[in-house]
Structures are given as C-alpha cells and as structure tokens.
C-alpha cells in the first residue's frame, strides 16, 4: 500500500443540541449543561414526513440529508462517477420512531392503519438509502447498528476504499431520541444511567490520491481501528493496551484521547496521552458516539496540539471502538 492509498478525512458535518461542527470542536469543560436526554432543536417537527425530491423522509432522514447538504452533498462530479460514491452509517435506534408509531396505530386504530409509506422507510438503513437517492450515490450503501455503529461504519468505509469498490464514501452516525427509547434506556440498560443526546455526524472519506484529484483539502488521516468487547474498566484497559501497541500511537509524541463513552467512569491512568471525556459536554451520542469527538480531534490536529487522536465510541452493550486520526 502506498501513501496514495491513505484514507483521508476531507469533509465533516454535524448537528447536535449544542450546534454544529464548531460547537463539537470546543474543549469539554466543567459540568454537562445538557438535559439527560437532549434533543436537537432545529425546526424539524418530531413527526415530520415530507417529500424531499423523490424521497419520503422522516425526521432522522431529513436531518441526515441536511447535514450532508451542508457538507456539499458531493460528489457525482465529472471526476467521480456516481457509481463510485458509497455511504455507510451507524445508528443505535435508526428510524425506529416509525416502528413505534406504526405499532401504536395498529394497536389503537387497527392493522390497516399501518402506513405503507411509513413502512417503506422504517428500516434501519432508510436514512442512508434516502441520502443516496437524494444525491445519486450508487456505490455500496451499508448501515451498521449499535452505539459502535458510527465508528464501525468509518472502518468499513476505509476497507471499501482500499479495495477500490468506491472512490468516495460518506460515513457517519445518527440517532434521535424518542420518549420510549429514553424510558427504555433508563429502565433496562446494561450500564448505569447517563445523559444521552441526539446527534448526526457525517464524514467525507476518500483515498489521498482521489482527494488530490478532486481538489479536497484533507482534514486528517484515518489511521486505524481498535476495539474490545466490553465497555467497563476492563474494556478500557484492553483498548488502551491495544492502542499503545500500535505503531502510529507509539511513534507520536503528543497523543489525545477523546472518550465519547465513559463520562465520569474510571478509565486507565493516562500513560503520556492527554484524555478528554467529550461526554462531559456532548453527553453520549448513541450511534454517533465517538464520531462526535472527531471535530475536536480535527481541531486539535490542525492547531498542532496533537499528533494522533483516538476517538472512542460504543457502550450500551456494544463494547468500545477506537478510531485513530493522524495529521493529514
């Protein structure tokens, strides 16, 4: 593999109760100011259903499409055929609000009131599919579940780029909170209750050679994935042991960990690395956990405050997944 095959982060968009990319890039400090289940107030109605071009979209899909539009909604340019643009997103709850509403309708008003239109967009992959319809992306389109799903989607995308199945991938994570989900998380989660926030994070990823050809400015280099099956103190210990064994981490003088899972949990003592718990300002972002720390990672890399950053996502039974980001 040559340097031309390096996987580059060339675009970043986000929506969070705190704001967009700039808000997420701010350093975590002090106490969490968000409510324990923070919703995004961006004017999209909770029960939104709209025709967006050819697509019938709900709130989750509409927000993802808007974030991608902000990112440029690219490409399908003359330089990259639409067939070579893929999408991979991670989510914990997907468009399951629709499942809730359809089941409630069936229980109250009978089976015929389950809307075929709603049913057609209730699958976990519908936001990614609707984005592909909106932008004409005809490459691989995958959705990965769990709170590690967004980070898994980035790792999956990198492998698809390296295999030349696609030239550009829009990857990321999204989730919205419903009243039922909030209650369910409090009632039966495998871990102690904590604060959760809706979030949508989207990344544009491509190989260095393609980035150059398209005239994109790289923001960071994707430098690998490490994971563990547990998200407790043992899981953190294993994750950091594996991270510290990687060449990119060992060779970096200044390293920064951005933990999007642990909050105030005990993590292993820092071993030379700087450690920030993004959950202290962002809360846990479910399927976008970990990814919500990437704006901060990019900010620190660009400012020259870190040589390599680790963003940690996961939790809620999904274990931990760390993504490594290096200077572009």
């Amino acid at each position, binding site marked *: 593999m040559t340097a031309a095959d390096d996987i580059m982060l060339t675009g970043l968009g986000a929506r969070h109760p705190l704001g967009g990319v700039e808000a997420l890039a701010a350093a975590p400090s002090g106490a969490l100011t968000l409510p324990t289940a923070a919703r995004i107030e961006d004017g999209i109605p909770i029960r939104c259903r709209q025709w967006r071009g050819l697509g019938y979209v709900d709130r989750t899909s509409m927000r993802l499409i808007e974030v991608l539009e902000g990112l440029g909604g690219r490409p399908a340019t003359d330089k990259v055929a639409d067939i070579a643009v893929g999408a991979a997103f991670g989510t914990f709850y997907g468009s399951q609000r629709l499942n809730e509403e359809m089941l409630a309708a069936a229980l109250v008003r009978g*089976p015929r009131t*389950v809307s075929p239109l709603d049913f*057609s967009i209730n699958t976990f992959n519908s936001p990614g599919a609707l984005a592909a319809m909106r932008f004409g992306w005809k490459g691989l389109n995958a959705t990965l579940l769990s709170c590690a799903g967004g980070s898994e989607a980035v790792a999956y995308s990198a492998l698809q780029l390296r295999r030349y199945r696609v030239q550009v991938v829009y990857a990321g994570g999204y989730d919205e909170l419903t009243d039922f989900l909030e209650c369910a998380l409090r009632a039966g989660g495998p871990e102690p209750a904590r604060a959760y926030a809706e979030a949508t994070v989207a990344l544009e990823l491509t190989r260095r050679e393609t980035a150059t050809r398209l005239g994109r400015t790289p923001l960071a280099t994707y430098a690998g994935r490490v994971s563990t*099956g547990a998200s407790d103190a043992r899981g953190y210990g294993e994750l950091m042991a594996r991270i510290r064994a990687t060449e990119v981490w060992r060779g970096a003088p200044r390293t920064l960990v951005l933990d999007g899972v642990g909050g105030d949990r005990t993590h292993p003592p820092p071993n030379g690395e700087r450690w920030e718990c993004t959950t202290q300002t962002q809360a846990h972002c479910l399927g976008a956990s970990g990814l919500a720390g990437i704006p901060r990672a990019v900010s620190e890399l660009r400012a020259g405050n870190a040589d390599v950053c680790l963003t940690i996502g996961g939790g809620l039974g999904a*274990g931990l997944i760390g993504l490594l980001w290096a200077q572009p």
Partner: protein
Amino acid sequence: MAIRVVITGLGAVTPLGDVEAIWRALLGGETRFAPRQPRHTDPLARPPLLQAFSDAEWRDLEAGRTSGRVGILAAIAAQRACVDAGLSDTERRSSDLVFATTSVGWPSGEADFRRYHQRGAEGLDAGVARSRATAATEAVAAALALRDVYGTFSAACASGGLALGYAADLIQAGVTRRVLVGGADALADVPLLGFANLRIVSAHGCRPLSHDRDGMTLSEGGAFLILEAQDEARAAGRQPYAEILGAGGSCDANHMTRPHAPGVLQAMRQALAEAALAADDLGAINAHATGTRANDAEEATAILALYPLASPPVTAIKSVIGHMQGAAGVFASLVTCLMIRSGQVPPVRGFSRADDPRLTVAAEAQTLAKPFVLTNCFGFGGANSSIVMGAAP
C-alpha cells in the same frame, strides 16, 4: 500473496429444521407455510402465509435462554456452525463476529413498546434491554465467547450479503483469521402488517421467478457460516464447502421498495470482476427472487443483461424456506455452499413459466455444470449485494 477465504462450517435453525433439513426440503421435501394472524393487533381480513415455529417448538428452543427471539435463533445457528466446522474452544474464542438482521429487536421490542403504550414507563422493566437493536449480536458473542464484533449490518434484506462480503474482506485484509458471519430474523407484527399493506404478500405461497407469482412469504430463522483463511482451515484439517471469490455491492438510488435492474447489475458485475470470472463461467445463479412482481422482474432484467441469449440455471429458495428478511443473504449463501459441495442445483418450488424464456429457471433439480455460483440479495432502500463462490481449492 492474497489470502484466500473459505467456508468451513454451516449452521441453521428454521421451522424446517437444520441445514440438512433445509437441503432435503429444497430437493423435494415438505414445507410448513400456514396462515397466521399478527398476534397483538386486530386480525387482518386475510392472514398471510408464513413459515414460523410452533409455540411448542419455540419453548424448546427458548429453554434456558433469555436473549430475545432473534438472539436465540442467532446463538443456536452459530453454535451449530461451530460444531459443523469442528472448531475447538480455543479456535472459537479467537474468532470474530459479523452479524446481519433487519427487524432486530422488535419481536422483543414490540412487546416492550406495547407495555409502554398501555402503562407508560411503569410498564418497563430490566428486560427491556432486549429491545436493543444489537441484543442478538451481543447474545451470540457472549454465548460463544467470541473475541470481537466487527459490526451488525442492517441494510434491510441485503444485510446478509453485505455482512458476508465484509467478513471476507476482513480476512483478506489480514485483520482476522476466522469470522463467524450470520444472520437471524423473527416475525413481528409491524413487518407483517407493513408488508401486507404494501400488498406484496402472496395469497397462495411464494412462486419465485414464475410468471404467475403474486408476492412473498415471510419466515423466521437463523443461519451462520464459518469463514476462515484457507491456510488456517488446511492446517486444522477442515474440508471447506466453498471459497468466496468476489463480492459486489451497490445502491439503486432510485426507489425505497422497488429494486432497479441497473443497480442489481452493477453489484453482479462487481462480484464477477473481483472473482476474475466472466459471466459464462458461472454454473448457476442463486437469485434473491422474493416472488414479488417487481423484484423478480428487475432481477431477471439484470441477469439477462449479462446473458442476452440464455442464462445459466437460476434457482431460488424462498418458496421452500420463506423470506428470512435480514438473514436472507446468509441463508442463500449457505444453500450455495451446499450446491457447490453436492454439485446440484435445487429446483425452484412452485415455478411454472418464466416471464422471459431466456431466463433458464431450474424447474427440476439438475447438475451444477460449472463450480462457480453467484448469489444475490437485495433490500429496501435499493441495497444490493452479490457474492461469487467457487469450489474450494
């Protein structure tokens, strides 16, 4: 040198039985489709045909397990695959997991939501954790003490094919040496009602690729494949069922529920290109073929774009095992392994005549003339996946 990926173990749990029972049924055995109402809502005027576990069968499967319906199906199938491959405890514990599902959690989540709908938050208890989308993945990883999880794919009914392709990628990239890749799905009320209201459920039983087809028939179950680096399997003395030669994927970017031939064709071409095979090298195609008017017409158009004169034998399994939703691609790949090992192409149950005579549908069981088979699976959202497998070296 490139790492070759082989399949060394198969496991399944379905209303028809295990892997052997599936193969017997495909070659002419009995099916178990029967009308069934949604359980917890007003009855439909015409209950759909389904292939489901009886209550007594389910009690046996569930005994001692608490992980929810999808998780139970997945864990049983995964355990059977490990036994089939003859994995030692050490080998199993050093294996990784890639999983696929679509209605995930909602067979359990629906019950939780009904309690919430009736009694509010007070109706929820610790068991609601089973509602989590990845509860099934966690159940398999925990039951088999697997090393790591590399993702739970949920691209509707294309999930299984994408999971299989990624599992092969991970081995070829040297990330891991062995992956358990599987899928499971169970029947829940919302999908039953949704498919019925979309009017794509068959009244008479699914007849894939047949000109008189009138829709799909849903089913439930779990299936797992053990994927290994070829040298790993050889060192352990395992005889592979088949080798994975190529994977292709695409998105139609066209319609949420109706497949689109150009996208399907793209996935098939990509898989063939990765396998370094020409279309004429294939001995058979194991089609997605749900039995809906739109799916089978678009898939046939894509196949005939590869074969303008006559296709190789095309088979389809959903009139025997039903549509396994997110697990469909894993079930189809499992059957492809059996086709390659046995050298047989199973017939398409219920087939009478194709829309286009150039599509050579396997109306009877026949010999697999060439040891390469392409397997398709597609899903809502225009997700397409194709996998090419060949006889193991």
